């Protein structure tokens, strides 16, 4: 296996293949910066170009792109409170407040470094799992996947510790919005009111953009300030790198969770980001800064969402089961190259699989180096007065929204959700909880019905279900304990101390 890995490295270091990797990375970085685009758009753009390429070059191009979209999507998330892709939504919670405090460069330094390390861990995990994947993935059935959704929903209690009831209501609203459109288990279109646009449900990207980005733009205009009133220091990026190494075990833990969740089809980088964010809060002794610019709130989701890409490749390569929409398009790339992903990939095309591992790792390093080179001028955007910046951001947000279904409904939904998000922000209702609910709604319902259809009610007694269920309950109690601690701290704090507002504070409440 090690010999094969070295051979695969030699294959990918061929100048032409390296060039393809660089082109893929450049495309992925641009895609990630543009809100609402995401890896699937980049994959579909590059797919036609792989005709006639050898498989190694083609995979270097495609993997190079997909590896780094979760790196550059941090830029709009930190700078503008706009998620570059849905996986960056959790980064906004602490990243955006850091930019407001003049620490955009620090946030970037931490985000890019943790993205790189997360991506490398994802690639390493893919390499290590190749001989082990089959029994692991086959052990997870619909009941276990349902419980993972429940675990994700319990993160709501963590991200809304100030008022868990409002968090639960917001999550239920997200679950309800997720029910719009075709029902997963019967031929019924729900809550469409005969509007064709809603037959496919509310696009997640439109909801994320509207919920977080539009309220921020409106409030920036009202305040007439720049994103940051404090000049960002060039040394901030290095401080961010140091933060990552100070929290190295957080990076490792979040990456492993990201890989695990990525390997389970249907959950994706968004779920991984939120779950690891919630865990970062839960396992921290000092939670007071979360939601107000705690660097760990950037490190955890950024490690996870890059590592997640390695995880999604596990079922894609080894079982032919796409772990996400992006990898579904990647599968068609394999078909175009005359390859059949599945269990035989690890035996018949081991060199290609290993070259994919190397592409993933190298792309993350290359992407991070590029981002560091450009982060300082980009961070300076934070000092530009909002009225000068907002028109451009608004135009691109509209473009991003419209690309989801290319229907006027995208723009209408963007405005309506934006209005809702603005109201929630000013009434201190947790928007993050609503997004978590929407993300997990379809999976929760689908796996629930599958579990009942396949196992009756005996699925509740499966060991995996019980273990994950216990973890979920412990999460809720941990959140309640956090709330009591917050209340105790508030009663002891000076009167003008707003107290910790975990993920409902400055960034997203």
């Amino acid at each position, binding site marked *: 296996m090690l010999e094969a890995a070295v051979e695969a490295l030699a294959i990918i270091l061929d100048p032409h293949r390296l060039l393809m990797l660089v082109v893929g990375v450049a495309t992925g970085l641009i895609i990630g910066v543009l809100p609402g685009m995401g890896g699937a*758009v980049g994959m579909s753009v590059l797919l036609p170009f792989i005709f006639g390429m050898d498989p190694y070059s083609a995979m270097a191009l495609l993997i190079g792109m997909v590896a780094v979209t979760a790196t550059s999507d941090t830029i709009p998330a930190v700078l503008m409170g706009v998620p570059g892709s849905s996986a960056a939504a959790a980064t906004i919670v602490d990243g955006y407040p850091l930019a407001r405090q003049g620490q955009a460069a620090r946030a970037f330094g931490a985000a890019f470094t943790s993205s790189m390390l997360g991506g490398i861990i994802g690639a390493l995990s893919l390499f290590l799992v190749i001989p082990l994947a089959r029994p692991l993935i086959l052990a997870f059935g619909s009941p276990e996947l349902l419980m993972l959704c429940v675990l994700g929903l319990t993160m709501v209690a963590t991200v809304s510790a100030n008022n868990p*009831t409002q968090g639960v209501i917001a999550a*239920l609203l997200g679950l309800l919005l997720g029910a719009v459109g075709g029902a997963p288990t019967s031929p019924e279109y729900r809550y469409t009111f005969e509007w064709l646009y809603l037959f496919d449900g509310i696009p997640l990207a439109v909801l994320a953009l509207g919920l977080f980005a*539009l309220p921020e733009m*409106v409030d920036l205009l009202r305040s007439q300030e720049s994103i940051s009133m404090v000049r960002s220091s060039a040394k901030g990026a290095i401080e961010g790198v140091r933060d990552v190494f100070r929290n190295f075990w957080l990076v490792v833990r979040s990456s492993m969770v990201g890989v695990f969740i990525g390997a389970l089809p249907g959950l994706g980088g968004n779920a991984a980001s939120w779950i690891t964010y919630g865990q970062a809060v839960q396992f921290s002794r000092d939670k007071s800064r979360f939601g107000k610019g705690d660097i760990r709130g950037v490190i955890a989701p950024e490690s996870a969402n890059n590592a997640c890409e390695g995880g999604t490749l596990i079922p894609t390569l080894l079982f032919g089961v796409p772990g996400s929409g992006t990898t579904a398009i990647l599968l068609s790339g394999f078909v175009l190259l005359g390859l059949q992903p599945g269990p035989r990939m690890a035996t018949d095309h081991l060199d290609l699989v290993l070259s994919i591992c190397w592409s993933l790792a190298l792309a993350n390093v290359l992407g991070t180096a590029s981002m560091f080179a450009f982060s300082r001028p980009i961070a300076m955007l934070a000092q530009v007065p909002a009225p000068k910046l907002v*028109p451009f951001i608004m135009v691109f947000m*509209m*473009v991003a929204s419209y690309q989801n279904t290319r229907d006027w409904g995208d723009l209408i939904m963007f405005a309506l959700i934006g209005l809702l998000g603005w109201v929630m922000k000013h009434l201190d209702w947790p928007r993050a909880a609503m997004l978590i609910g929407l993300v997990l709604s379809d999976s929760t319902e689908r796996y629930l019905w599958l579990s009942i259809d396949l196992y009756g009610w005996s699925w509740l007694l499966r060991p995996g279900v019980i273990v994950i269920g216990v973890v979920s309950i412990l999460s809720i109690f941990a959140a309640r304990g956090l709330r009591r601690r917050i209340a105790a701290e508030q009663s002891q704090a000076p009167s003008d101390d707003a107290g910790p507002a975990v993920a409902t504070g400055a960034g997203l409440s």
Partner: protein
Amino acid sequence: MFCGFLGGVFLLAGLEALTFLEKARWYPLAVCGAGTIMCAMEFVRIWRSLDGRPGGQEAGASIASVWRSTLPYWGWIAGYYVLILVAGFSVASALFTLAMLRRLARVGWLPSLIGSVAVVAALHFLAGLFALDWPRGLLGDIRF
């Protein structure tokens, strides 16, 4: 009020869910039922915490004043939508950028025009690169 609004949404959505096919009904019904109950509980909690306290009225006045101060900017966004509807996205974006830079950012004519042209150029570049599309207006899609 917001809590009451959400409670109303859950209630109406729950009633709508009763009209769905059986397998499609239970999930939204459960979500709406839980949502209605939670909203009612939260409404009561807020009502009790604000009852008789001057702070409650102050909070309401605060959000109303924030809304009033933000209304002009929602108006700008609404105007952008009307422009897109009438003239198409390219023209609307150019005019929106120009107007906002001139009026709100108080930037001079030349930089505003440059910004406006840059927006249109970037839109066309991205459209060519990523095969993007954008809404056409009632006057068709006027592209520069």
